[in-house]
């Protein structure tokens, strides 16, 4: 393979609910070789598992249909390949849906589904959690347990030649790293290359957060045309270094500042960013501004991967009830404070963790740093967790009742109820996680009966 070859990998979604239009622009005009859609946050799998428990054909990303309808025709026309974790808690059902959508659109398509992240049947109840050291079982009955798979689990799916690769839980940067390993023939024991590829995957994985999204601060940090924010791609070379860019004419920007914010985003130790593939070191990365929304990323590094995989465990954590009501005009804050005290008195016996926030005063940072002020309007927020829906619903009912049973001039009451899924993490030895690939095709409406499992590799499983 020629040393000067580069591949272009774009990111068409950075979270479950991300915008679809920028992905369409990338797919249409980005001259991509690969597109990745990252759609799975920590608790998204557990929430998806609840949907799957209610209906065994569900449990994949609810936006799968909309994303595929928009992107599949462009994928066929422009011949790029797509990797996405929107399989969530049910990657096989997601794969079948992608095939069905392709058939509806009159497209011939091959899909490969990565399996094996679901390890609920192997989860030891006594396993210590990373968060507190307490055993997993003390948090409640697990409803989901998913191992973060790495690039090695995605590679056999790529090798099938499928145009769309669907996964459940995989580490986000691994979806970007897998095509680099495939196209450049990197060995899986090359931590410097894997570290560099992981840096690029990490930079791309939140899509618009690299191109000026979540960045603008008027008067300090201007971002042009944020309303039409474009999503990023990277031209990666065989040495693992790359140049970030976006489609000309889209909004947003790629500068040293936007790249630095994203490089450090959610990184607990910049010298040791642990993924299933490598322990990457971001601390020596060089960023070079090439102008015109292009930034060169060089000199990431890494050391050998660990012997374990992180497992995200979801458990039912009851319900959360919320209620809000607004006070405005003279003495607004005092009336809201009085209403909050009344809510605490009426609720705390049954809902001991009841929380009173004054929106406009101290709700977001949970403090006003000792500088109280009297805003023109204040919105009271009351929240509490309850073991049952009925208990949690009391919060909203009591807030609503402030109309006739509380201070003067409350308005705009709203109530909300949501089921909570808690997440804790643990580690699992790699040899307890077996991954596989299931191939599907529009030529053959049903998935192949037998899964293809990669052969076990000593020292790598």
């Amino acid at each position: 393979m020629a040393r000067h070859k580069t591949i272009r990998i774009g990111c068409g979604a950075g979270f479950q609910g991300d915008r679809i239009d920028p992905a369409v622009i990338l797919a249409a005009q980005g001259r991509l070789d690969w597109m990745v859609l990252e759609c799975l946050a920590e608790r998204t799998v557990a929430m998806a598992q609840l949907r799957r428990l209610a209906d065994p054909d569900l449990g994949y990303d609810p936006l799968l249909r909309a994303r595929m309808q928009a992107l599949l025709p462009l994928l066929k026309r422009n011949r790029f390949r797509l990797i996405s974790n929107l399989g969530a808690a049910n990657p096989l059902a997601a794969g079948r849906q992608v095939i069905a959508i392709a058939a509806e659109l009159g497209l011939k398509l091959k899909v490969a589904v990565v399996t094996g992240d679901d390890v609920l049947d192997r989860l030891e109840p006594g396993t210590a959690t990373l968060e507190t050291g307490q055993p997993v079982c003390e948090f409640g009955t697990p409803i989901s347990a998913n191992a973060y798979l790495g690039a090695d689990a995605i590679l056999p799916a790529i090798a099938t030649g499928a145009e769309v690769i669907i996964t459940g839980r995989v580490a986000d940067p691994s979806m970007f790293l897998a095509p680099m390993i495939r196209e450049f023939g990197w060995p899986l024991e090359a931590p410097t290359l894997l570290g560099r590829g992981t840096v690029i995957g990490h930079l791309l994985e939140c899509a618009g957060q690299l191109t000026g999204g979540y960045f603008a601060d008027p008067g300090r940090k201007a971002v042009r045309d944020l309303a039409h924010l474009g999503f990023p791609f990277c031209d990666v070379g065989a040495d693992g270094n790359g140049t970030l860019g976006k489609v000309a004419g889209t909004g947003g920007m790629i500068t040293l500042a936007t790249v630095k914010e994203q490089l450090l985003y959610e990184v607990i130790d910049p010298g040791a960013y642990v993924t299933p593939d490598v322990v990457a070191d971001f601390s020596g990365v060089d960023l070079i501004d090439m102008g015109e929304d292009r930034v060169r990323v060089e000199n990431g590094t890494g050391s050998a991967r660990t012997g374990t995989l992180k497992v995200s465990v979801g458990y039912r954590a009851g319900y959360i009830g919320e209620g809000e009501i607004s006070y405005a005009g003279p003495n607004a804050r005092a009336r809201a404070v009085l209403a909050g005290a009344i809510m605490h008195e009426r609720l705390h016996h049954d809902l001991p963790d009841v929380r009173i926030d004054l929106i406009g005063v101290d709700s977001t940072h949970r403090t006003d740093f000792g500088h109280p002020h009297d805003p023109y309007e204040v919105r009271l927020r009351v929240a509490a967790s309850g073991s049952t829906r009925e208990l949690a619903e009391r919060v909203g009912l009591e807030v609503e009742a402030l109309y006739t049973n509380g201070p003067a001039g409350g308005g705009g009451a709203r109530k909300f109820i949501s089921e909570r899924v808690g997440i804790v993490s643990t580690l699992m030895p790699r040899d307890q996680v077996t991954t596989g690939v299931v191939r599907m095709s529009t030529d053959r409406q049903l998935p192949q009966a037998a899964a293809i499992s990669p052969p076990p590799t000593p020292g790598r499983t």
Partner: protein
Amino acid sequence: MSATHRILHDLAHCRAGDKGDTSILSLIAYRADDFPLLVKQVTAEAVASHLKDIVRGEVTRHVLPKLCALQFVCEHALGTGVTTSTALDTHGKALSFALLAMPIELSEDQPGSP
């Protein structure tokens, strides 16, 4: 030399991330010239003190000279974490601007603005 009081927002930008109950706050100097001042004044202890009403655990600082950036890892900062907190901003996404509200002392020869 007289000193002027500013806030970090005048010198640096920040993005907040979360892992479980841990909040991760970057602090990136607009100008390389201001980075030594950030290293000197914005210590882990100073940040822990500034965020004392928010962060209940340890604050660890990483220094990243190539990026002119500091990274603060704040434990027990999100009231049990994204999935079970009753707080409004469960992820602590907005805590970036809590850090940027931190006062800082500038000497007169260090005008410090982006």
